[in-house]
């Protein structure tokens, strides 16, 4: 069980943003979460570059770019609205660094959608999958015992599965 805590430890470093998932990391260490996200994001970038240059990924070069861009935009818009309505500052605001550190989750989902789906030459289903991945984080949330909300689905997996079910022409 996750121990309840009325206050989430905010890091002294303002560039390390804090959200509900941090409470799932050892010692609620926001740095560990950030490390994990960047580690995975960099892995995905390397994997995509290798895939498109010599591993023979079928998708066009445009797909990872479009997917990551649409996932990032969706995440920014949703966070902005979420923060505004809660009267807090968006997690990407403050500094250049906090903006950059806000992006890895969207990058991971975008890259995953762009490499695991083959929608012929169409970009539409890739944009849909990426946006749905990110939106699933606000559409399907549970309340932790500390009162904060967190998503419980794997975003990109959800986006990919739903896209495959809705678009029978996507392979």
């Amino acid at each position: 069980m996750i121990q309840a805590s009325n206050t989430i430890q905010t890091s002294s470093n303002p560039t390390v943003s804090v959200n509900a998932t941090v409470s799932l990391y050892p010692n609620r260490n926001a740095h560990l979460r950030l490390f994990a996200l960047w580690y995975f994001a960099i892995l995905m970038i390397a994997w995509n570059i290798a895939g498109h240059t010599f591993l023979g990924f079928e998708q066009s070069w445009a797909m990872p770019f479009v997917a990551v861009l649409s996932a990032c935009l969706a995440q920014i818009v949703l966070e902005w609205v979420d923060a505004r309505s809660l009267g807090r500052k968006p997690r990407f605001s403050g500094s250049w660094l906090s903006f950059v550190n806000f992006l890895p989750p969207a990058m991971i989902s975008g890259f995953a959608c762009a490499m695991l789906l083959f929608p012929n030459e169409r970009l539409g289903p890739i944009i849909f999958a990426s946006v749905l991945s990110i939106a699933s984080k606000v559409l399907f949330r549970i309340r932790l015992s500390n009162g904060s909300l967190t998503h419980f689905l794997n975003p990109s997996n959800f986006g990919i599965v739903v896209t495959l079910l809705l678009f029978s022409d996507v392979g």
Partner: protein
Amino acid sequence: MSNIMSKTMATNRRVQFLGFVLVATCYFFARQPSISQGERKELASKLHFDRFNLGVEDFALNGLKAKRAAHPSLDRISAWISGTGAAATLCDLDLDGLDNDLILVDTRVDRIVVMPVPGDEVHSKARYEAFALDVRDLPMNPNTMSPTGSLVGDFNEDGQADVLVYFWGRTPVLFLKHTHQTQASQLASSQFTPIELVPELVGTSAGRWYTHAATQADFDGDGHLDLMIGNFFQDGADILNEHGTGIATVMHEGKSRAKNGGGAKLFRWLSASVGNQPTVVYADQSSVLEKHCGKGWVLAAGAADLDRDGLPELYIGHDFGPDRLLHNRSQPGHLEFGLCEGVRTFTTPRSFVLGRDSFKGMGVGFGDVNGDGLLDIFVSNIADEWALQESHFLWVSTGNIDDFKHNRAPYEQKSEPYGLSRSGWGWDAVLVDLDNDGRLEAIQATGFAKGVVTKDSKLSWIDRTLFSAGFLQHGINRWAELQAVGTTNDRLIHDPRAWPKIQSPTATLSGYDNNPIYVSSASGRYVDISADIGMGDPFNTRGIAVADTDGNGSLDFVYANQWEPSVFFRNSIANHNKSLSLRLVLPLDDEIPFEIDPSAESVGSFAIGATATIKREPKTNPVSGTAQRTGLVSVAEVLSGVGHSGHSSQEIHFGLGEYPNATIDVELRWRTRKGHLVSRTVSIAPGRHTILLGTSSK
């Protein structure tokens, strides 16, 4: 606390609503365009066909077969081995002026049957009895050899239509039709003399060929027709030998660049003789192709003059390897090709570059889709839902034909905007105008293994349970196993023992797909209306042969089906559209007058490679979306042996729509028997015409 809770609840709702709107918007824009029921009905009303099953069961020697007899080492993939062989060619063997003779390979019968097309209302009774072509004295072991298709042409240049039959298990045989036969006597097997195409390989293990494509064209421009023969398995493989030992063959050396198949072979015409012992001799010049293609696993081929320089280019469809487009740079007597590849841009998927694809290349058809006076290329791959989503190709010409000289293929892959990307496990792909409205329809053969489970089937307990519960009516879907092949290490799949079990007769692989019949909708996208016109049956088709068999100006066609009866469809459209059908006949002697609808009986053969170009009324092409006006010029070429196993008529056919004028200008271009390129523009009335391509000015 409760205050904070209710506030987060409210904001949660707001963000959720926004998230939903974003997703819904993206979904709306990501959908495929569709057409209204009304438009679908209207499109379907344009076409109607009467169907006739092609009964050849009487020709079976030992009952009807349901699968290939195969080498023991291939037993685990017996359904895969049994996947091909059905073939059909429509032609005019009895020289009655109509392409109403059908050469059918029905795999259940496993012989080559020649028959008049059924429902022939021109004649009160059948013109001749159907007969099987027999190789007579040539070596033929029915236990290791099976016919897989035919190609019709005048190989020994005597004005008679001869038949080349190709096989699994041996080299092709040429059936040369006798010259002395009079028109009055009925067509019969005795009128054909079988001779070997490659006599030096007869009886050798290297002579065990597994041919799946044959096309003819005058590749070197010397006035004589050369042959391209495309083989699938390695020459010398022992596929059909039930009593074989060891391993029958090495399979593909990889899934995307396999070059260890049979390869495309090229035979240059050298000499021929006519009479009672007719002969024709070719020189094997396969190395000219192997230089560019390696030994691919050929499933389809087609030759057509794509750059309008008078020499035919060659498109070769390869299984498990890139297709090949070869630009013809030959001189008379000296064959030479240049390999052309497309260009990739930021938005081009990897395989959508001509010559760089990893798709399966199983059928090829030519037609001027965008109306720019250059032929476009329609290619079948595997594109089946919940199975394997490659994409069929529609290589649309860019018009920059000079690119050919720089080894660039001037084609863009546009199957997606044209709506031709996916249908099933594709084979023959043809572009023809079925309703004579001036726009090409597309028909595609689909299907692979049509599994059947019965009470007596050997089943695992789990399949037995499923069958008892009413499932498995359409066989056991083996796509999961085939997908496992797709994820197998490339270094393993060359060994048939590393393949998963895909066995006849229970295995199903895309076997119940319908053959799409695509009609161009108002938006310019093609829409499959096969089910709407009562032709949505799950035919398991390999070849499509098209011809105007009754001479009424509309095109009929045959589906050559695998392990089930093949079907003939007679076109019975009722509309006011006109058409122009041209039989371009090359006389035996160049020095006779050019003549339209010659009164006397003219001896000659189809002028393969000749082109006809017409100008149409201006129309905007909705697909290209740009200001480009298309449909202005249409070109058609006398082609022979294009595709996988269905070979169409050598007549040229244009749909003209409701053409208001009395005559139409047609620019004809052909190569004479002496090898000279000649062109001539004629003004003729719509309808059917025979044109004798003499060069004498008298």
